[in-house]
């Protein structure tokens, strides 16, 4: 049984945000509006968290792509009263939109604040309405959503592999952000396969996790020298 995980090499990341755009397009993120942005309620499952140190002009900037950290001990799943969010047998933290009752417990429980609530009916103005990805649900008002490692891509990859009588190959199931990354700083794969690139990198001395001290055991690992 694979355990899907991700490694993001911050030494390679240029902060170009191609992953942010790829994610939004792949997963039908509603556009939002300036008003919604002013309230801090724009929904982007994958964002760049900038960390600026020093005083201008002597600054160093860290650009950190952040998305659902796919915890092994996910705080959000412990508080969900209806099991709309849970950790499945492959370790991926699911969000079943139609099961969600919109209580927002999980949004508040997530220490990374990487779960999003639909405060309004999402809109896709003009032609964008015809350009949504049919493999991904359009979440409605009152529902919480988050990154599920482009799980819809695994569904089709599994079927293709099954038809050919084998298991999913590492290059077959790749989330949209990984595919779009120009510097290949995001690596995805099976953490339980000791030979996979992702598990090798996750064991690197440069590896760290976000808010490691909380014990959530994320399956998204960051790499950084210094």
């Amino acid at each position, binding site marked *: 049984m694979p355990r899907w995980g991700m490694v993001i090499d911050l030494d390679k990341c240029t902060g170009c945000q191609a992953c942010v755009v790829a994610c939004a397009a792949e997963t039908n993120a509603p556009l939002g509006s300036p008003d919604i942005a002013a309230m801090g309620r724009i929904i982007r499952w994958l964002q760049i968290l900038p960390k600026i140190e020093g005083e201008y002009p002597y600054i160093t900037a860290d650009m950190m792509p952040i998305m659902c950290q796919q915890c092994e001990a996910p705080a959000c799943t412990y508080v969900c009263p209806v099991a709309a969010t*849970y950790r*499945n*047998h492959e370790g*991926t933290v*699911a969000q*079943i*939109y*139609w*099961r969600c009752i919109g209580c927002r417990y999980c949004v508040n429980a997530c220490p990374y604040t990487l779960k999003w609530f639909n405060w309004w009916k999402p809109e896709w103005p003009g032609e964008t309405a015809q350009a949504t990805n*049919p*493999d*991904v*649900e*359009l979440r409605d008002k009152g529902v919480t959503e988050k990154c*599920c490692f482009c*799980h*819809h891509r695994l*569904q*089709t990859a599994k*079927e293709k592999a*099954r*038809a050919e009588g084998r298991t999913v190959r590492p290059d077959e199931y790749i989330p949209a952000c990984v595919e779009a990354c120009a510097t290949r700083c995001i690596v995805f794969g099976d953490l339980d396969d000791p030979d996979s690139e992702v598990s090798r990198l996750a064991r690197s001395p440069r590896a760290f996790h976000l808010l490691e001290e909380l014990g959530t055991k994320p399956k998204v690992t960051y790499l950084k020298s210094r």
Partner: protein
Amino acid sequence: MPKTLAILVLVGVTAIGGWFVVSAWGGGSVQQPVAYNHKVHIDAGMECAACHTGAEEGTHAGIPTTDKCALCHKVDRPYPKTPKDLAFYLKANKEIPWRQLHRTRRHVYFSHQRHVALAGIDCEKCHGDVKKKTTPFDRAAFPDRQAGMNLCVDCHRKEKVTTDCMACHR
């Protein structure tokens, strides 16, 4: 008298409500553009996948385009007999606007290949006995009229296939 009025209103509401219930559950309501007949074609030796080309190796089974029908049905040929409604679309070289009735929702991932080719499940399990059907579909023929979660999960439990929500939902 207010009491008779109340009774009259009650009777009216029940009648209208009942009509809605009956029309929703009873006979079909959708009219297909051509009086298609599955039985004559199956009896003529055609396979389901000859017309529903995705039924064995695709996600969607698909409904055949008019050029498929034109392989056999020619307006100026007596056999196979081409009814007027079909002849109209063939002459105009237009697609027949079939109404698709079997659908799942966007948040459900269902694939025909997985069930027909890989699991070897007969179409009949989900769509009823199409081979004997002499009229076009006027409503979905799923066992419960719709492909609700019970249809899927009951069989998955029986066949020991995954019931992980994430296998079907997206």
